[in-house]
């Protein structure tokens, strides 16, 4: 029987096929490179071949004279534009900010920095003219390793950042942690390298600029996860114009994984160039440009110390981390290794003493910023390796060490002491461990491992029990309590029920693969009691959608969709008032159920939401003081983040002769709170697992000592293929959160966060008979083979 909140066919929780797919599977979708404009000219960007160099001068005359060229521009042409802003100045970074300009003027600090731009009639003509631009370079000494960069005598990259230190940040209690480590039965120390990754969205970045001189109006199409924020940053901080003078549009966006959150030089450039040449201009990066000039992720070196009692109870954790931020600061770079990393170092465990110190370092490498998980994978890697190191040291089962240290269900909300006032919302951590162990048949696997070892085979089982932080918001926390974020982090939505009963919702959130048009429509249709196909979700254009901070940090469900839900609730309230008027009843007696509103106890005498929408639109007979139309806007700023959790288990076999790691099985039990669309959530988990496993086994950006990126194409960088993976075995538990009324937590990053340590733990477990307790990623055959050889020969 239906209730007021549960329609007969609940859409929330249903595996609804995505409404965005028909255009994507037929080739009808319009990605950035598919946008067609009259008079479109094409931009090619000249990039620095040096990692660190002064620009003595640039001669553009030959390029400007080349066929089809409309203009050649250097940084001096855009001196009036400010450098790009750094919007998350965590760790007191403000005195040490060095951000890119649209085109660099005096100096470059990484290979791939933009120094000149050619505008031409065709992409080919622009590309060819690039070779005619003469730059007089003065190469400078280069440093790429963050630990070398902070040593005395290292090349200095930015005058404002002595010793190449961008920021220093800490959390936790240094003294308590030192004394807890002193008093521990065992202390395990390990240096952990969390290597640099290249996000590699399959759609490269691109931008189109258009300028309308009579109105002084810019339009910028861009491959962005956050068009509203891009407009804010470009107008307020770079161009110095009101936001009303710029419209930003994200067309269909082909993946981002964080790399498309940020304000990049080229977005500013296309707007400025469109104004200069008086025509719309387009720039689309090549894959090589994507690798050298789009942001990278991770790149931490951490010295870990973990103290424990003999029974496996962890008593202290200390992490000292050097975070490589690259040659200039990307938009939110300082926030990643601080707020999103250090504050999550308690993991899923009660650790009474934690201290983390982070040094953010400039080096002559590409920019590093948020990449799927953004800080939380790095934290989870530290914590989950720490647990396994303790288990190894004490010869305990890693599953039991996890269980012994879990935050128990009765402890929620749980304050780990390092979250600057926030608390973990809800959790049943052991339930996911138990389920994952059962799914993988842990005891049989351990027996099989024992037998395999007898045959000289290296079978490994790796666990990872994680907790992460989603729905990144409370503005009052991240903006004002010292986390250094330069704005709020709320979301907004507008819900409009048209005369015909069709519903249009606009959101400031942005979809680049997550399926907002489906999940948001599910929530609206479910709550309003209208058919799913009657709901249209509009997004990604600053003209016509309310402001939003964008899609990243798994926040579109826990923040953006909740704003929408609150808008729908307001529509329902107004509908109840109108129905009461139409039925001549008391509004307090009105029941809203399955799209019908009736007097309690008299469901046969009802008004449908469509009838009410029509009545509200024609407005012939409205109650006293009521405005026409069902049209409500809501802003939502959550009181807390949400904290999904789970346990992943990887089973690997390492080839004794070649060192090749074969992933045999992968089991994931995640708890992302209430699930709106299980089809989509599973898809997010699958993709996340693939990316996290890839970090463990295959991917890693490599710079040589001159600052040249050696992994600058898909031929060198190990993006995994279909045949690299076994089927993923994915299950869920569902523990709602009371942080938001939908009970949702966030599902976009769990897979990436959990899987990397699960796989590394599995490989290290496999190699335990050789006495190997740790290996740094990626665990390529060469690296594993060398470690095995070293262990066997005692080298």
């Amino acid at each position, binding site marked *: 029987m239906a209730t007021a909140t549960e329609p007969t066919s609940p859409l929330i929780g249903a595996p609804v*096929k*995505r409404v*965005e*797919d*028909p255009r*994507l*599977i*037929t*080739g*009808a*979708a*319009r*990605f950035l*490179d*598919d946008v*067609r404009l009259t008079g479109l000219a094409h931009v*090619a960007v000249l990039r620095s071949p040096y990692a660190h160099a002064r620009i003595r001068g640039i001669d553009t005359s030959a390029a400007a004279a080349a066929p089809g060229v409309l203009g050649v521009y250097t940084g001096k042409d855009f001196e009036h534009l400010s450098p790009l802003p750094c919007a998350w100045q965590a760790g007191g970074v403000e005195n040490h900010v060095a951000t890119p300009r649209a085109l660099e003027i005096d100096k470059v600090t990484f290979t791939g920095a933009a120094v000149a731009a050619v505008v031409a009639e065709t*992409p*080919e003509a622009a*590309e*060819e003219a690039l070779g005619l631009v003469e730059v007089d370079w003065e190469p400078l000494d280069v440093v790429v390793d963050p630990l070398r960069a902070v040593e005395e005598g290292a090349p200095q990259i930015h005058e404002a950042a002595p010793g190449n230190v961008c920021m220093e940040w800490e959390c936790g209690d240094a003294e308590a942690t030192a004394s807890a480590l002193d008093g521990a039965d065992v202390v395990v120390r390990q240096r952990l390298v969390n290597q640099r990754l290249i996000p*590699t*969205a*399959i*759609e*490269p970045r691109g931008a189109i600029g258009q300028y309308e001189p009579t109105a002084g109006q810019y339009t910028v199409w861009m491959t962005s996860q956050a068009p509203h924020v891009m407009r804010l940053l470009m107008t307020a901080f770079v161009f110095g114009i009101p936001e009303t003078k710029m419209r930003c549009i994200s067309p*269909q966006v*082909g*993946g981002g*994984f964080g790399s498309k959150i940020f304000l990049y030089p080229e977005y500013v450039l296309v707007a400025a160039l469109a104004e200069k040449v008086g025509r719309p201009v387009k720039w*689309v990066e*090549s*894959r*090589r440009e994507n690798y050298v000039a789009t942001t990278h992720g991770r790149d931490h070196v951490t010295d870990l110390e973990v103290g424990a009692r003999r029974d496996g109870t962890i008593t202290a954790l200390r992490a000292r981390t050097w975070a490589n931020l690259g040659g200039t600061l990307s938009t939110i770079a300082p926030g990643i290794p601080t707020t999103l990393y250090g504050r999550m170092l308690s993991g899923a465990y009660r650790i009474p003493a934690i201290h983390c110190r982070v040094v953010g370092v400039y080096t002559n490498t590409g920019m590093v910023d948020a990449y799927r998980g953004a800080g939380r994978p790095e934290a989870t890697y530290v914590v989950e390796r720490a647990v396994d190191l303790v288990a190894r040291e004490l010869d305990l089962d890693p599953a039991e060490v996890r269980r012994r240290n879990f935050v128990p269900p009765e402890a929620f909300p749980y304050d780990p002491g390092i979250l600057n006032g926030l608390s973990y919302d809800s959790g049943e951590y052991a339930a996911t461990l138990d389920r994952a162990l059962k799914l993988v048949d842990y005891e049989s696997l351990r027996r099989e491992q024992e037998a395999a070892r007898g045959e000289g085979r290296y079978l490994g089982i790796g666990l990872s029990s994680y907790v992460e932080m989603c729905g990144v918001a409370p503005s009052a926390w991240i903006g004002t309590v010292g986390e250094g974020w330069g704005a709020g982090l709320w979301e907004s939505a507008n819900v409009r029920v048209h005369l015909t009963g069709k519903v249009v919702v606009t959101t400031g959130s942005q979809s*680049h*693969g*997550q*399926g907002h048009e489906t999940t948001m429509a599910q929530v609206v249709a479910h709550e309003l009691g209208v058919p799913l196909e009657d709901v249209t979700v509009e997004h990604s254009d600053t003209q016509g959608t309310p402001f939003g901070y964008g899609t990243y940090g798994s926040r579109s469900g826990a923040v953006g969709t909740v704003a929408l839900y609150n808008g729908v609730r307001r529509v329902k309230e107004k509908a109840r008032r109108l129905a009461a008027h139409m039925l001549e009843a008391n509004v307090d007696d009105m029941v809203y159920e399955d799209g019908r509103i009736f007097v309690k106890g008299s469901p046969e005498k009802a008004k449908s939401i469509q009838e009410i929408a029509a009545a509200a639109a024609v407005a012939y007979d409205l109650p006293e003081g009521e405005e026409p139309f069902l049209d409500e806007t809501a802003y939502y700023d959550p009181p807390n983040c949400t904290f999904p959790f789970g346990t992943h288990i990887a089973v690997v076999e390492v080839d004794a002769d070649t060192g090749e790691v074969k992933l045999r099985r992968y089991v994931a039990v995640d708890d992302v709170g209430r699930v709106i669309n299980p*089809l*989509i959530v*599973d*898809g*997010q988990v*699958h*993709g*996340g*697992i*693939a*990316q996290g496993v890839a970090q463990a086994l295959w991917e890693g950006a490599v710079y040589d000592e001159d600052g040249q990126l050696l992994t600058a*194409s*898909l*031929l060198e960088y190990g*993006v995994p*293929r*279909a*045949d690299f*993976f076994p*089927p*993923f075995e994915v299950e869920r538990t569902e523990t709602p959160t009371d942080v938001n009324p939908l009970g949702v937590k966030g599902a976009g990053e769990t*897979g990436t966060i959990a899987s990397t340590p699960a796989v590394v733990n599995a490989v290290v477990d496999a190699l335990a008979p050789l006495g190997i307790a740790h290996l740094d990623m990626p665990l390529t055959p060469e690296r594993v083979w060398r470690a095995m050889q070293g262990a066997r020969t005692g080298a």
Partner: protein
Amino acid sequence: MLGLSDEGGGVALIAVTVNGERREAEVEPRQLLVYFVREQLGLTGTNVGCDTSSCGACTVLLDGAAVKSCTVLAVQADGAEVTTIEGLSRDGELHPVQQAFWDQHGLQCGFCTPGMIITAADLLAGNPDPGDDEIRHALEGNLCRCTGYENIVRAVRQAAQAMR
């Protein structure tokens, strides 16, 4: 990005049957098939994701065989039949591979999807009942960053069953 100089110059007249329709065009000898399809014919469903023939986003059928259209010159397609993602569905009916990608949530951002679907269609044309390993092997020239390939494999399995 497009690299080659056009020294030697000139244009070639080619005739290609694209999605069942005969198209004649003048192309530069260096013109790649993918840009011919995208820019000259306006069929933008075929995407470009790399410059090393690695990602497979640009895959089309050339005389029935899946090829990376960034690695074929337009002049090489003279006299041939080309099928792009826009030509896969017939009479408003989705191709079984398209339908299966939709049913199984075999796509997220959708950028690799046209190439992935074309490659899967090519596989199933020659092997009506592939095992999972065969499916994964057949797709190894097409990169997807969103799905972890799990639902793509499921989609190809569904399509195989539907087409048998």
